[in-house]
């Protein structure tokens, strides 16, 4: 029960940070995504199921506070949670650059999934402009923040939670 409450509190805190503070930390119009980084952190430390559920919860929180189409960011972040945890166990193992790769890949996956779902809902979002102005900057900014989750720390949390981290 305690890990679940801890994850909920973490996601809520990241939500406040993301919606209230991150927009004021934008560099050249690009802002860090603390919610995404939290989902990636939880996926790396706690595994697929926790990652997927944390992603769905974090995305839904964002959808409710500022979104019009509920479920778009929830689906995108759930995909990131599931995908990052799966890729870690299947592809990366314990390599030191795992958090950076996870942040880069997770940001790209979240933005592309959001784009596809919003497009399907009828929003006019051209892919070319989006790739240059949204997807690439998001990958870069979040990739630079990824060392917030150093490999040794991830391994320690995993060991405590009993999550299989091996390739």
């Amino acid at each position, binding site marked *: 029960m305690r890990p679940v409450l801890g994850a909920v509190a973490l996601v809520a805190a990241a939500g*406040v940070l993301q919606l209230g503070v991150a927009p004021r930390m934008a560099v050249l119009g690009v802002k860090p995504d603390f919610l995404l980084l939290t989902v990636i952190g939880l996926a790396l430390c706690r595994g697929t199921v926790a990652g*997927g559920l944390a992603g769905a919860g974090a995305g839904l929180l964002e959808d409710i506070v500022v979104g*019009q189409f509920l479920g778009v960011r929830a689906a995108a972040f759930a995909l990131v949670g599931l995908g990052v945890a799966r890729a870690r166990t299947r592809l990366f193992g314990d390599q030191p650059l795992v958090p950076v790769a996870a942040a880069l890949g997770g940001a790209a996956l979240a933005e592309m999934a959001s784009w596809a779902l919003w497009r399907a809902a009828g929003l006019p979002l051209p892919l070319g402009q989006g790739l240059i*102005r949204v997807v690439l900057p998001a990958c870069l900014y979040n990739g630079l923040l990824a060392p917030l989750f150093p490999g040794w720390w991830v391994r320690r949390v995993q060991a405590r939670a009993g999550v299989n981290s091996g390739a």
Partner: protein
Amino acid sequence: MRVAVARMAVALGVGLLVVFLAGLTAAERERVSAFEQAVREGLRPALVLAAGAVDRVKGTVATLASLPEIRRRQEELEREMARVGELERRLQILEAENRRLRELLGFRPPTPGRLMGARVVGRNADSWLSRVVIDQGTRAGIAKDAPVLTPEGLVGRVSSPGTRQSVVTLLCDPGSAVSAMVARSRDAGVCYGRVGTDLLRMRFFSRDARVVPGDLVVTSGLGGVFPPHLVVGTVVETFRGDYGLVQYATVRPAADLKRLDEVLVLVGSPGEPGGPP
């Protein structure tokens, strides 16, 4: 085996949730659900606190950095005040004359509505859309589609009003479209937002629109969402679309949409555009 089933259940559950919620919320709604309302209300104090703390830090740093500039500005403003005082006296005379002439013609001007201040407490987390959260809602008289402004010009419209906080879709949001016209030539068109940039694109109804860089763009009042003559921005460049059949302009919004701390919401009379239903 159990883990695989759990993974499948998570994926299936999230998939079903998305389909259900997206279907439920595909169109813009007059009111949000009780659950959404509860989540927004729950986060409201933390968002207000976070926005206040960031603004205080930013304000202190900016004040310290600009002390010499403030002194120079003060002298400038004193000179400006004297000039504005003279202009105000002339304006009062013209207003009185205007009122008298309107009465003579039997012309009734539209009710301007009331401006209400609101603080920006949040902004959308992604970079695809451009939306902000303000700390006022239906309890303060804000209705869906109410125009949102700053002293510089139009900012957007309320797209999702809550009880004590609302979501504002900015002019530069890709889903935003505003009926507008060039103030000088009165050529009309639609200003719409684009992904990842504050600059708007204006598509003119006429291919021979007389528009040049520097022209002021204001709302036209067509469409019934925004009242006429609110400042939208300034034309930066003009160009023709494919085959030269459609004329476009790039418009820089008058309001700084990236740095919004306080905004004004136009609360109209009941039944009017922008007013409560």
